């Protein structure tokens, strides 16, 4: 396949820079799993960045960050993605979002498409709670791409929407009809 013309505008793969040694902190998931992550990777999350800044401003030692709304399995995926992108400029992800011109790099495409839909949904929701713009962009684009050219029945299966006759008929009916 021929290379795209505007590839120069796209975010380039991270290049290793000579920098200070990695500052590792512990991150605890809602189900008690404790993982380790580089602070630079965590800074991709605006939510965690604010917490880390709070500790730094008060000169408090940062030993463990608690992420109460993400389970261990999903948090591991989030940290894997952040680790890969820790050198990226968050402004690029925001600009891509604003322009509605999202290109998924090959590593991310492989990372996201290998996940079952349920896990991808959890990952996007976690990215939303942690406010990681790049991961939200790529995740949503991947889900949208997976619906491309599908019949209504295939879309129903993909998005877990039951048939109308499988729906509860009471006033407590859910979003799915």
């Amino acid at each position, binding site marked *: 396949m021929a290379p795209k013309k505007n590839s120069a505008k796209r975010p380039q793969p991270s290049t290793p820079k000579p920098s200070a040694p990695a500052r590792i902190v512990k991150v605890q998931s809602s189900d008690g799993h404790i993982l380790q992550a580089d602070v630079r990777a965590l800074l991709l999350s605006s939510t965690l960045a604010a917490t880390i800044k709070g500790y730094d401003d008060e000169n408090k030692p940062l030993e463990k960050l608690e992420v109460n709304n993400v389970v261990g399995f999903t948090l591991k995926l989030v940290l894997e993605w952040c680790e890969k992108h820790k050198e990226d400029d968050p402004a690029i992800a925001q600009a891509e979002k604003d322009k509605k011109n999202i290109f998924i790099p090959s590593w991310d495409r492989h990372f996201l498409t290998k996940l079952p839909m349920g896990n991808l949904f959890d990952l996007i929701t976690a990215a939303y709670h942690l406010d990681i713009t790049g991961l939200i962009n790529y995740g949503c*684009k991947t*889900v949208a791409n997976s619906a491309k050219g599908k019949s209504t029945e295939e879309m129903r299966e993909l998005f877990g929407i039951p048939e109308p006759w499988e729906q509860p008929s009471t006033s407590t009916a859910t979003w799915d009809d």
Partner: protein
Amino acid sequence: MHVSSQNRKVSESQKSRHTLVIILSTDYVSLFHVIRTMKLSKIPYLVQKEILDNMKYSDLFWLSFVSENMKTLIKSSQVKRFRNIGRVVYESFCDKPIASIHFMTKNKQGTEDVPKKENIIGVFCDYKESEDDCFQLNVSGKVIDFRLSHYYSFPEACFHRHDKEYVIESIHMILWSIFGKQNIPSISFQIFLTYHCGLLFRLKTGR
């Protein structure tokens, strides 16, 4: 019979192998996580919107058939984006009548607006009894057969000639309910067809 049973066995073994590959490829994944399916309804609204924002108009159109609530979500979350649609056009495509959507969108650099078009649905098609790849959808309260075309990237309606009027009317109604003036005040429905023109014109002006 024997062959089909063998095929089923092969297909089942492929399925289990697929599941096994997923488990092996992510060593930390539990079976619980593998077998879960995505439920779009459980995602926060802003994420739902973000996913729908990334979908093509044609995919949104077909997704709207999944449920009434999905249709409502699409219409409410895409209000701003739908304003970029200028017209819905009934036109001829490879000698077959179709409905298409004409809209403005950003170019790849995101610097300027450019016109674009998406073909949504094949409107007319002669139904053949031998067709076995048809699927049925409830279109504006009427059940209509569709098939995924072998030639185009969009589905087309299949129907007997004597059902023509009600099928065309239903398709027009569903297009109107999603892309009509109540959602997009500046939209226009245009007809560039030589035949069936009278019926479509009546539907258009009737609205």
